C-alpha cells in the first residue's frame, strides 16, 4: 500500500547515469529482491508442511527402495538451501513442478485457470471504477450532503462485510429467490465445451466464435460475482477519490479558477479532477491487485474455476507444488502491480521525485 514512500535511504545521486535510469534500475533491483524473498517464504512454508510429498507420490505401500528413489528424485536429500536454488531455477524457467494430485505440470494448470480469474477481476475493477470514481467526486463536491452520507455508508459496508457472505447472500437473493442470474460456475451445463478456448476468457472467446447464446449465458453467470468484487473495489476507489478531491478542492488554484468565473463543471472536472488522475491510477492498480486476492473467497462461493479456487483446493488436498506455484504467481502479479503504480506515481507526479 505504502510503496510510494519507499526508498527513504537511497538518496545519493549518481552523476554517471541519468536519474530516470537510476530509478528504473533501483526498481528492478527491488523487484528482484522482493521476488526472491517471496519465493523463499513460500518455499519454506512448503517445506515445513506436515505432509510427506514422497508418500503422496509413491503411496503408503511402497517399499523402502522405491521411497528412497522418489525421495532423491524430488531432490529432498540435498541441503535445504540447495533445494531452494533448484526451486528458483525451475521457477525462472516457468516450471513449478508437477501437481501431486493429478501429475500435471502446475504451470500448465495455472495457465489454464488464470484467465477465469483475470476475467472476473477485470470486470470487477471496471465496475468499481465506473461507479466509484463519480461517486467519490460527487461526494467530495457535495460534502456533508445526503449523497456524501450514501458514499460513506457504501464504503463502510464494503470495509466491514465478509465478501464470502455477501456472495452467498447474492446467490440466495438473485439466483435462489429472484432467478435473475445464472448460478455457480462459469457456464450452464448445456453450454460447456461449445466454444474453442482461445484466450481462456469465456466472454471474449464466445464473442470471437460468434456464439451469442454462450456469451449471454456466460454473462448471466459472471454478473453476480463480478458485481460483488466490483462493490468492494467501488468502496475503496470512491473513498480514495473523495479524499483526493477534497484535498484539491481546498487548494487555492481552485478558488482562483472560481474567481475567474469558470463554470463549476470545468473547475471540478478539468482542474481538480485533472490533478488527481495519477493518484487515481495508482489506487485502481492497487484495487485490481486486491481483487485478485478477493477472488480467492469469491471463487470458492461461486465455484469459479480460477486461481483462487485452484489454490484453496490444492491447500485442502495438501498439493504443495500447486499451492506454492499459485502463491508465487499471485504474489508476482501483486508485486508488479504495486511497482507499476509506484512508477506511474514517480514519473507523472513531480512532487514524488525527491
Amino acid at each position, binding site marked *: 500500500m505504502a510503496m510510494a514512500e519507499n526508498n527513504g535511504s537511497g538518496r545519493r545521486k549518481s552523476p554517471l547515469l541519468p536519474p530516470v535510469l537510476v530509478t528504473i534500475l533501483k526498481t528492478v533491483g527491488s523487484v528482484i529482491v522482493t521476488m526472491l524473498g517471496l519465493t523463499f517464504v513460500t518455499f519454506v512454508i512448503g517445506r515445513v508442511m506436515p505432509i510427506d510429498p514422497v508418500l503422496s507420490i509413491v503411496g503408503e505401500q511402497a517399499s523402502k527402495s522405491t521411497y528412497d528413489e522418489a525421495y532423491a528424485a524430488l531432490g529432498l536429500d540435498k541441503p535445504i538451501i540447495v533445494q531452494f536454488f533448484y526451486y528458483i531455477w525451475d521457477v525462472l524457467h516457468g516450471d513449478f513442478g508437477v501437481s501431486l494430485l493429478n501429475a500435471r505440470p502446475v504451470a500448465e494448470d495455472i495457465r489454464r485457470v488464470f484467465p477465469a480469474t483475470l476475467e472476473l477481476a477485470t470486470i470487477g475493477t471496471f465496475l468499481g471504477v465506473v461507479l466509484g470514481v463519480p461517486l467519490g467526486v460527487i461526494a467530495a463536491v457535495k460534502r456533508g450532503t445526503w449523497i456524501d452520507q450514501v458514499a460513506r455508508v457504501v464504503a463502510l459496508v464494503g470495509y466491514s462485510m465478509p465478501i464470502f457472505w455477501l456472495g452467498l447472500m447474492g446467490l*440466495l437473493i438473485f439466483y435462489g429467490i429472484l432467478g435473475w442470474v445464472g448460478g455457480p460456475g462459469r457456464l450452464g451445463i448445456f453450454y460447456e465445451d461449445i466454444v474453442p478456448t482461445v484466450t481462456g476468457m469465456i466472454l471474449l472467446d464466445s464473442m470471437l466464435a460468434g456464439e451469442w447464446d454462450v456469451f449471454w449465458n456466460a454473462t448471466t453467470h459472471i454478473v453476480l460475482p463480478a458485481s460483488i468484487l466490483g462493490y468492494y473495489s467501488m468502496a475503496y476507489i470512491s473513498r480514495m477519490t473523495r479524499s483526493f478531491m477534497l484535498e484539491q478542492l481546498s487548494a487555492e488554484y481552485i478558488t482562483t479558477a472560481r474567481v475567474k468565473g469558470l463554470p463549476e463543471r470545468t473547475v471540478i472536472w478539468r482542474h481538480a479532477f485533472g490533478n488527481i488522475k495519477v493518484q487515481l491510477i495508482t489506487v485502481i492498480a492497487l484495487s485490481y491487485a486486491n481483487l485478485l*486476492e478477493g477472488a480467492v473467497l469469491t471463487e470458492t462461493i461461486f465455484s469459479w474455476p480460477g486461481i483462487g479456487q485452484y489454490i484453496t483446493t490444492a491447500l485442502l488436498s495438501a498439493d504443495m507444488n500447486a499451492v506454492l506455484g499459485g502463491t508465487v504467481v*499471485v504474489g508476482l502479479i501483486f508485486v508488479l502491480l504495486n511497482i507499476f503504480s509506484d512508477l506511474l506515481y514517480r514519473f507523472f507526479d513531480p512532487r514524488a521525485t525527491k
Partner: protein
Amino acid sequence: MTDMTHKPTLREWLMTDTPTSRRHAKFAAMYTGWLTLKSNSMAMIGLGILVLLVLIAAFAPLLAPHDPFVQNLANRLQPPGTDGHILGTDSLGRDILSRMIYGSRITLYIVTLVALIAPIVGLLVGTVAGYAGGWADTILMRITDIFLAFPRLVLALAFVAALGAGIENAVLAISLTAWPPYARIARAETLTIRNSDFIAAIKLQGAKPLRIITRHIWPLCISSLIVRVTLDMAGVILAAAGLGFLGLGAQPPSPEWGAMISEGRRFILDHWWVATMPGLAIFTVSLAFNLLGDGLRDVLDPKDGGHG
C-alpha cells in the same frame, strides 16, 4: 463555567489549561480526547457495540438459551422462531443464537491476540530499523516489504496450511501477515522523533539507545499505532472468518462465525438462516471497529482524512 468555588470539580480539574503534574496533564489530554470522541455519534455506536460484544462474551453461559454443542437431529434446520430457537437451528439441530453468543468469545480471542502480537512485532521492527539506520534499516525494511508484497489472505492461507488448521495457527498466520504496516508506521515516527532536540538532550544526559527507544520513542508511536489497530481489527475479523469459512481456522464443533457460515453454505437456498445469521454478526462487529477506528483517528491523528 466559573463558579465561585475554590476547590475545582473533577471536570474543571480535567479541563485545566495549567496542569500541575505530568499525570494531571495526561488525564487532561485523555479527557479532552474522550470529549471529542463522545461528540462523534458514529464512533460511540461502534464503541457501544464492542462493549456489548464483550459483555455477551463474558456472560455467554447466562445469555445463551441453549447449549451451543448439544445436537438434536430431530430438531434440525428449524426456521427462526420455532419453539424457543429465536434464530432457528443448524443442520445438527443446534441453536444458532446460542452458538453465535459463544462464537463471540472466539472472535474476541482472535482479535485480542492479533491486536497484541502484530503491533508489538511491528513496533519492535520499525523502531529498531528507524533508530539504528544503515544496513539494519535496509535489511529489516526489505523483509517488511517482502511481507507487504504478499497478498495477505493468500499468505495466511499458506501459513495455516503449513502449520496445520486450528484457531491458534490462524491467529499466528494473521499476525504474521498483519505486522508490516505497523513496522512502517513505527519506523516513520521514529525517523521524525530521532532527530528532534529532546532526543539530543537525552543523549547528552547519557541515555543509551535501549532507554531512548523504550522510554522515549515507543510512547510517542503508540497513538498512531492504536488508530491503525482499531482500523485493522475489522480486517482481522474478516480474515479470521475467511479462514474459518475455508475450514482452516477454528475446527468444528467450535461455534466460530466463519465456520458456521461454511456449514450453512450447503443449505443456503433452502435454509437461508443458517449462513445468514453468523454473517450478520461478523458484519456488525467489523462495522463497529471501523466506526470506532474512524472516530479515534479524528481524535488522535486529525491530519489524515482518507481510509486505508
